[in-house]
């Protein structure tokens, strides 16, 4: 072996070692967080937690059942708002977008992504809550959906653009119109990455607190329908974490743990549902 090759080989080993360290470090943070949450809040997890309403401090048997359902409802509305706009917008940018218009759309999405979530919450407050006269699940879901849009849009665009042009050309050559090419060929080919983007944005809004304070508000009780204020896990975590009581602190940690486990679970579920039938992992 020449010394040049030895040197390059050494560089390779060092750099790959560095990548391993980076991965270990990042995963380690997550493991640490999970462990921390389990340690701090594990004792508060019980069947009560998942089935009971919150109780005042000092009383045993309180839970966050309404917050769990509330978060699910909020994310449902958020998905209805965020996914169509983000996904279809991303399709446009990837397939038809060119020139100044596409540039402006991408730019706008990046800027929107940088708006603090509390500002989105205040905007929705002014546009929805004040005219309606009360807080509601719809307003909260709308705020979360707006936050979802930029991430969904940009990741959809990136992954659809990565689909090789040869695929598109092949489909068009077979006589399929453009829209069929996109719907039946490009999107399924890019679905794996697009799913990852959508799930990433859902995961992000699942933990957002500030926008909900002025839109969905909060509720100690069950929320009926879609026009009443509703409890949500992040707001409950925040409310309990900033209280002076150890019991509530533990419940806050427990709720954070539950939130993470639920997000992980839905991630896995969604990927199983959507990625079945995808052939090779890597494009050739």
């Amino acid at each position, binding site marked *: 072996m020449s010394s040049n090759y030895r040197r390059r080989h050494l560089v390779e080993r060092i750099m790959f070692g560095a990548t391993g360290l980076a991965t270990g470090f990042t995963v380690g943070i997550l493991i640490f967080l999970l462990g921390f949450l389990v340690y701090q809040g594990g004792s508060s997890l019980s069947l009560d937690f998942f089935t009971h309403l*919150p*109780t*005042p*401090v*000092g*009383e045993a048997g309180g839970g966050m059942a309404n917050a769990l*359902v509330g978060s*699910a*409802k909020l994310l*449902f509305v958020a998905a209805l708002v965020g996914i169509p706009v983000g996904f279809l917008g991303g399709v446009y940018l990837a397939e038809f977008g060119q020139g100044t218009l596409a540039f402006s759309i991408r730019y706008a999405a990046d800027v929107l992504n940088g708006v603090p979530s509390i500002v989105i919450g205040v905007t929705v407050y002014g546009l929805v*809550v*004040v005219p309606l*006269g*009360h*807080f509601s699940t719809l307003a909260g879901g709308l705020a979360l959906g707006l936050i979802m849009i930029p991430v969904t849009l940009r990741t959809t665009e990136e992954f659809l653009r990565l689909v090789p042009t040869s695929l598109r050309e092949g489909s068009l050559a077979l006589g399929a119109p453009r829209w069929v090419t996109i719907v039946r060929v490009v999107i399924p080919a890019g679905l794996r990455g697009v799913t990852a983007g959508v799930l990433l944005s859902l995961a992000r809004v699942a933990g957002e607190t500030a926008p909900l*304070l*002025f839109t969905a*508000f*909060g*509720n*100690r*009780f*069950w*929320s*009926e*329908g879609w026009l*009443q*204020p509703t409890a949500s896990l992040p*707001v409950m975590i925040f*409310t309990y*974490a*900033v*209280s*002076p*009581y*150890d019991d509530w602190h533990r419940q806050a940690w427990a709720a954070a743990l539950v939130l993470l486990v639920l997000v992980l679970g839905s991630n896995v579920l969604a990927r199983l*549902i*959507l990625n079945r039938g995808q052939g090779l992992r890597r494009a050739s």
Partner: protein
Amino acid sequence: MLTRRLALLAAAILILTASLGGAAKLINGAGATFPYPIYSKWFDEYRKKNSDVQINYQSIGSGGGIRQVLEGTVDFGASDGPMTDEQLAQAKTPILHFPTVLGAVVATYNVAGVDKLRLTPEALAGIFLGKITMWNDPALVKENPGVALPAQPIVPVHRSDGSGTTYVFVDYLSKVSPEWSKNVGRSTSVAWPVGLGGKGNEGVTGLVKQTPNAIGYVELVYAVQNKLSYADIKNRAGTFASPTLESVTAAAAAAAAKMPSDFRVSITDPDAPDAYPIASFTWLLVPSAIPNAETHKGIVQFLEWMLSEGQAFTKPLGYAPLPEAVVAMERPAIQKIRVGDR
């Protein structure tokens, strides 16, 4: 295939979220974070007696509470500081103030080897003005004989968010320090000359616990629950008052004699001998005209319950109950709330 699965998922969610509530009337309130624990206890206990009323209170901050009650998006508000004249002028219906419990702001510190600290008003103001910078400053040593104060720089900690707690603290400092009154002033949020900012009572608590030689101000209940050291403050009568539930109630009782009819009063720096000088009421803000008859009944009956049986729940949670004199003044004031349009 995919759309079918998604449709099933959506249907499952919709079924899950079908109406789960009861037929009870929901009353919404928003405001101060400080009394959230006692309010949630009260609303829960009240619901046990009166199951057809659900009072949903969310702590979004005193300012948030004031704004939402002015907008009409909630049925009542709550605030650690009374509404200003400008804010009251913005209300479509006059807003009434009802004191509920008392809180105290304590000076909590983290200095190794110091168990009990005594502070004069001038010393406290000096620390937060940045004039007194070392723990072994003569002004501090003088009032604390026998305590080994270290030669370390003081790290003041204040609130970064606007809050009623800050308002009470700077209200007191403005009364006892002309320099503070002139240069900094009183508000829920001020331009602090020195120090780190912590978000919320728990933020300040955390910062003080974590930072050696720090001193900050928090609500009494936070200091007690987190087992922090807090200082005795010299009151106007010359005694070094320790913040206890009794000394806080004494401060309120001293103010009861001069209580205005709208209950908007500051009780910091009172004259009574056993009173703790940095105490305050916290108020419920109720519109004087409530359109919905059920909501009106729910709120009025709750207020009456709060003044009679509710006060018994305060001490176990670390809040000081209202003095009898104030309770007696409030009862007739409840009658001012009527049913009608805003």
